[in-house]
């Protein structure tokens, strides 16, 4: 029994354009879901329209895209420690609103997710969450970068990857041991690539804009040197390195070369690095634009987009980083790094990748689903008969305006407030349950009497 069981079961999704990059499917189709919330059939649209295999609701997805639920390899849920900013449950709800059914949460909590008890704690909290939550364990004990954390025990408890995110593992020797050790469990080592003595106390990208503003810079080379070091270690140990949130054109080239060489490396990019540039800070020093790695230049944005389109970068991950309002309302220098991103990811990616012609819908969905799941070896991100029905219904042409009130996340530190985004998540389904829906905007989602039930049951929570 999980929190999901209180949501309405969906029996059939009919009339939508089903896009599943994993199977190459892109056609109108009906999806049938059984009583256990598993996909029981994927049929031609309209075929046997009356057959429903469970007593679940029928969702009319005409005019919509039906895709695998999105997978986010990089979120910060702030629990334990900063439950005022986000919790496992609230972050998972925000994820569902953004179309994400599976999220992986970083261990930089207080205390850090650095032992099996804390992994279990997070998984226990995830029982109250609408979506799937996989903890990422710390590489080093207490995330202090001094000695190895209990990786085997954390794997056994359910951790899917390891990272000291927020910072890299400073010691090459320790990282090498972690990589060697990780190979026994085939789990990725996720690095936040940064040389602390190069980025020092920098607060934004080092370049023309930082020169104008007098803000201390974080040079692109800080990320690139650490990435190159980590790739050298991955090459030598054979471990799987996953590079978090690439931000520079140089990093894309480093990954491109490493992959060509056959190094076991994967990489992600955030929606914000695919669209925002450092000159936004010059408007009025708004800390909402303060993020680590920092927003870079147009040239970097273009290279990251191209790298994703080329497949050099494996997937999109949000680095959803909630912060309390008072912490982001003050001096740029003193504000913490990070921005929320789960709920705006789809719309921002549509703007950055589809509207620019770099990717089509199947291509974008691939980056948000199969390619992400594959990087962490997660059984998610596809629409397969017999698998749990984790799905998202997207209204591809509908628009919405980002406001603090429109965001479900406990924190509202989004740089996209005020933006008009195209591509609305109308429904998110996990285990066959309708965990999020946006019917109000006038779509023709649910049919007949079942509509009433699904609306009220969702509203009850």
């Amino acid at each position, binding site marked *: 029994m999980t929190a999901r069981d209180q949501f309405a079961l969906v029996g059939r999704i009919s009339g939508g354009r089903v896009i599943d990059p994993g199977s190459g499917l892109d056609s109108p189709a009906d999806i049938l879901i059984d009583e256990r919330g598993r996909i029981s059939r994927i049929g031609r649209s309209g075929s046997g329209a009356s057959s429903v295999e469970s007593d679940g609701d029928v969702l009319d997805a005409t005019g919509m895209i039906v895709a695998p639920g999105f997978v986010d390899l990089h979120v910060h849920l702030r629990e334990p420690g900063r439950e005022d900013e986000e919790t496992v449950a609230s972050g998972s709800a925000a994820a569902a609103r953004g179309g994400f059914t599976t999220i992986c949460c970083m261990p930089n909590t207080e205390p850090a997710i650095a032992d099996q008890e804390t992994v279990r704690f997070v998984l226990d909290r995830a029982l109250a969450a609408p979506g799937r939550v996989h903890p990422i364990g710390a590489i080093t004990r207490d995330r202090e970068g001094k000695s190895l954390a209990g990786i085997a025990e954390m794997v056994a408890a359910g951790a899917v990857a390891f990272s000291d995110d927020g910072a890299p593992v400073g010691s090459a020797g320790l990282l090498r041991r972690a990589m060697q050790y990780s190979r026994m469990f085939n789990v990725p080592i996720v690095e936040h690539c940064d040389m602390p003595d190069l980025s020092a106390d920098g607060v934004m990208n080092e*370049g*023309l804009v*930082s*020169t*104008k*503003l*007098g*803000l201390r810079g974080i040079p692109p080379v800080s990320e690139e040197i650490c990435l190159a070091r980590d790739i050298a270690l991955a090459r030598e140990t054979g471990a799987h390195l996953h590079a978090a949130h690439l931000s520079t054109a140089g990093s894309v080239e480093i990954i491109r070369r490493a992959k060509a060489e056959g190094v076991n490396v994967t990489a992600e990019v955030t929606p914000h690095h695919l669209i925002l540039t450092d000159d936004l800070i010059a408007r*009025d*020093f708004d800390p909402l634009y303060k993020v680590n790695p920092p927003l870079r230049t147009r040239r970097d944005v273009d290279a990251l987009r191209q790298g994703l389109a080329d497949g050099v970068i494996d997937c999109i991950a949000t680095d959803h980083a909630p912060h309390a309002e*008072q912490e982001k*309302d*003050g*001096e*740029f*220098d*003193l504000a913490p790094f990070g921005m929320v991103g789960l709920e705006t990811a789809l719309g921002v990616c549509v703007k950055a990748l589809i509207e620019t012609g770099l990717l089509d819908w199947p291509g974008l969905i691939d980056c948000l689903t199969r390619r992400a799941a594959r990087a962490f070896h997660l059984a998610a991100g596809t629409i397969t008969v017999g698998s749990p029905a984790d799905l998202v219904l997207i209204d591809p042409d509908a628009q919405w305006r980002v406001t603090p009130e429109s965001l479900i996340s406990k924190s509202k530190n989004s740089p996209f407030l005020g933006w008009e985004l195209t591509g609305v998540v109308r429904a998110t389904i996990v285990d066959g349950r309708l965990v999020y829906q946006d019917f109000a905007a006038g779509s023709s989602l649910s049919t007949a009497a079942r509509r009433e039930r699904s609306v009220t049951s969702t509203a009850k929570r």
Partner: protein
Amino acid sequence: MTVSHSEQKVEARVKGGKTMPPPKAVADGAGGHDPAGPSESTPGRLRIRHLLGLEGVRREDIDLILTTAESFKEVLDRPIKKVPPLRGQTVVNLFYEPSTRTRISFELAEKRLSADVVNFTASASSVQKGESLRDTVKNILAMKTDVVVIRHPCPGAPHFLTRTTDAIVLNAGDGAHEHPTQGLLDIYTLWERWRSFSGRRVLIVGDILHSRVARSNIWGLLTMGAQVSVCGPTTLVPRPLSELGVEVFTDINCALEAGVDAVNVLRIQRERQSSDFLPSLREYSRLFGIDAARAARLRPGGLVMHPGPMNRGVEITSDVADGKASVILDQVTNGLAVRMAVLYLLCSGPSPAAVGTSGQ
């Protein structure tokens, strides 16, 4: 004390409401004769509402500040130095960084303009400890302050104030970003002698990377039509500067050869040595220090400036600092006039509606 005298005199003048007399009339009220000045015919209004920096400030605005400052400078030479235009207005000086001359200069300018002055000084360390600017600002707002003069170690702190208060905000230095009144007083000091910047080259020497004075000078001087060059060690001169239309030199001899009408010598902070921007101050002094031999290579009539406080014997030698080409003390005097002008003009508001009634 002559204060009450001047205040009484002007009371009638200010009665009309928010309309403020231009400097000419102000001077008239205080002293009794008209100072000649370009501002006589046009009681102008600035286009800016706050002075956050000189980047983006239009030439007409800088011209207006210079001519207004000239009128105020004349006032400063009178026995009665106090004039009334900020009577009834409250100015708070919010200093989060130690500062002697800038704070005194602002305070004196405010008092000369008859403002009510409140000083708030916080140590930089208390800022780091989380003493929230946001909360301080809310308090200031609650006290119905009209003008906030802020010095803060974080770039953009004055911009934050404009987002969160209705007060007029004057940046008195925000980290390494800008120090617009210093830039204006440097420009005024040159303008007073040159009147036009065309064909003039100003060389800024030193730690450009960390210097708000350099940034404000660069923006202001470029707007006024001067050529601007900078010279300093490669560790302290950001490469993107050349994209701003500034000539970048790392050899002081080359920089001087290009023909320099004024050199603005920046203070070199001793901590740059410990953080490896410089191997030693001795090397800095050897490569970039302005001594008599280097000063002699300025164009005829060339000027030497320094925003202070000086490290004599490091970035500048005493014979140059106290020599004939030095205008360093003029800068201090001009700072007062320029700050009076800026305060006066900003408090007059950007509204053109008042212009018609001000020519009394």
